[in-house]
């Protein structure tokens, strides 16, 4: 099993979610995050004074997938979250040791069904 973690533009969450639902992933988690990467800092003003925030809002999507589905899921996210501009984000993969479904106590791949 693999955990796919994607940092994407916030307004593309809906598209990515739709793409993943088409692949019948069993579930996903979305968080509002702020972070910095290659996209440039934003200058805000407050009462005439300017200040810079280099931490831009992004969404983090986490999804657990069976190993044989990983490539499909990654490509799907990459397609849906792609604009071609700097700042589109990253997809990170982690090996997962085990998964437990809390309600039933099922373990491993069966917990992801």
């Amino acid at each position, binding site marked *: 099993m693999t955990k796919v973690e994607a940092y994407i*533009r916030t*307004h593309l969450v809906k598209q990515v979610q739709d793409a993943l639902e088409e692949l019948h992933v069993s579930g996903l988690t979305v968080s509002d995050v*702020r972070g910095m990467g290659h996209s440039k800092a934003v*200058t*805000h*003003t*407050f009462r005439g004074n300017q200040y810079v*925030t280099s931490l831009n809002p992004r969404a983090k999507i986490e999804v657990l997938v069976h190993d044989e589905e990983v490539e499909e899921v990654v490509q799907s996210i990459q397609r849906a979250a792609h604009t071609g501009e700097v700042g589109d984000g990253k997809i990170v993969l982690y090996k997962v040791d085990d998964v437990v479904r809390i309600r039933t106590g099922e373990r491993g791949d069966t917990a992801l069904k």
Partner: protein
Amino acid sequence: MKRPFFNGPKRLGVFVAACATLLAIFVSTTPAHGQNPPAQPPAASPSAAAPSKPDPTGANTGLGLSTSTPPVDNASPAGLNAWSADDVKRWSKDPKAPVTNADLLKALDAAGQNAVALNIVWTLITGYLVMFMQAGFAMVETGFCRRRNATHVMMLNMLVYGTGLIGWWIAGFGLMFGSVGQLGTFGNASILTQPNLLHPAIGGHDFGIWGTHAFFLRPSVYDVGVYTLFLFQMVFMDTAATIPTGAMAERWSFPSFLLYGLVISIVIYPFYGSMMWGGGGLSTLGVNFGLGHGAVDWAGSSVIHAVGGFVGLAGAKVIGPRRGKFNKDGSPNAIPGHNIPMAFIGAFILAFGWFGFNPGSSLGASGGNMRIAMIAVVTMLASAAGAVTACLYMKWKTGKFDPGMSINGFLAGLVAITAPSGFVDATCAVIIGAIAALICIWACGFVERKLKIDDPVGAFGVHGAAGIWGVISVGIFADGSFGAGYNGTGATEYVLNGVHTGANNVPLMGVTGCLHGDWGQLIANLIAAVICITWAFGSAYVYFSLQKKIFPLRSPAADDPEEDLDQAEFGTIAYVHN
């Protein structure tokens, strides 16, 4: 509303009668002093036609009213002043000092001036309440929009106050009220009595459309009564001006918006307003054509709310929907507001401000204007009926007691009762408010699903549709108990359904709707409604379309998914991480 008190013989008559009674009491309880009977009336006796001098301190405002009864002695005009410090000294030395006839005149003047002072205080305080409604509008609109544009919506509400007030000062007030006539409740000053534009016209009848005086509040109108009227009418105008900021929220380019503030306060709003309240053509439908009391709109269902609502509808049509509002097949998506509690608080602030809006439109509290008690009660009843109706209807329709629509229904009830609030009883208020909520909900759905216009906060449903219903409801429900003399009609003569009842020959005739027998009133108000819709929608549509050709109406950030208006237009976001 405004008109009757500038030329409403009934209320003036009541006041004169009260003064005469007071005079009689004083005369009958005062020993004669053996003074000569008056040889002739005081030279300074004010006549209705004589133009008054502006009164920047108010020291003389209201004094003339008491002397409009026949004078009892030959007191010189110099005697027609309020009690001076010398008088008080004289009485404190000798409490039994005989009261002279000059004292009586001073007593009458004091009574008259106090009544006018009460009216001015009442009008100012209710004006302050209406000003506070700006906060209500800002909160309802911002609560119903997305967090990414919250600063922008607030900024529109703030700056429409700025640009609107400047425009109102430059020319809006003068065009709308520059020719309104005598300021009845503010001491009857004849400062704004120059004729309207197009006077007389249309078959020899005065069909004025625009006032011609009081631009920039020039020194010729440096008068307490005029300034009171300016403040009260300014906050009304600003209510109309702020309604389109809701309908066009989340996409309006700020420079375009700034120009709009001047256009609505100088052109769009005063044109219709002058015809209704400024002594223009619609208000004279009764005098000239025998249609009820002329078009009657007590506090502005049409003048303010319908104008604002239809300008907003035209603006929302021209500016186009928010990105993502409509799918390719034209079906609408919900774009939920980000702060529903804020919208609720805003709704309550609006309802509170409405106690200034409707009762304040009497422009006074003395004499026959104690009707304000009824007006306040019907106002609250209509809002309650609107909220309950909207809430239950949505439950029946969608399965949930919809909070957003409950707010809209609550406000729609208030909007609809605004025009008839002076003339209907409690039962009619409940009916009017309930129907308004249904009309509002229907109109919101119609705009979104049939017209495919994106109105984020339902401004058209609440203000445009319910406002038109309100002005029509006057012609249906008004019960004739109030408003004799409104627009110069019904105090001494009246035309009831085409039958002229003759001069000085009828009981006082208040504003009466068709349910109580006067179809002329309904016709007059229908004419007003048609002109209101045509002018407000038409002029705004033309204006926004032309302005769009010259510089952008729509902010480019509205079409960029990465951008929001807060950052793009101001660089200041509403909710900062820190």
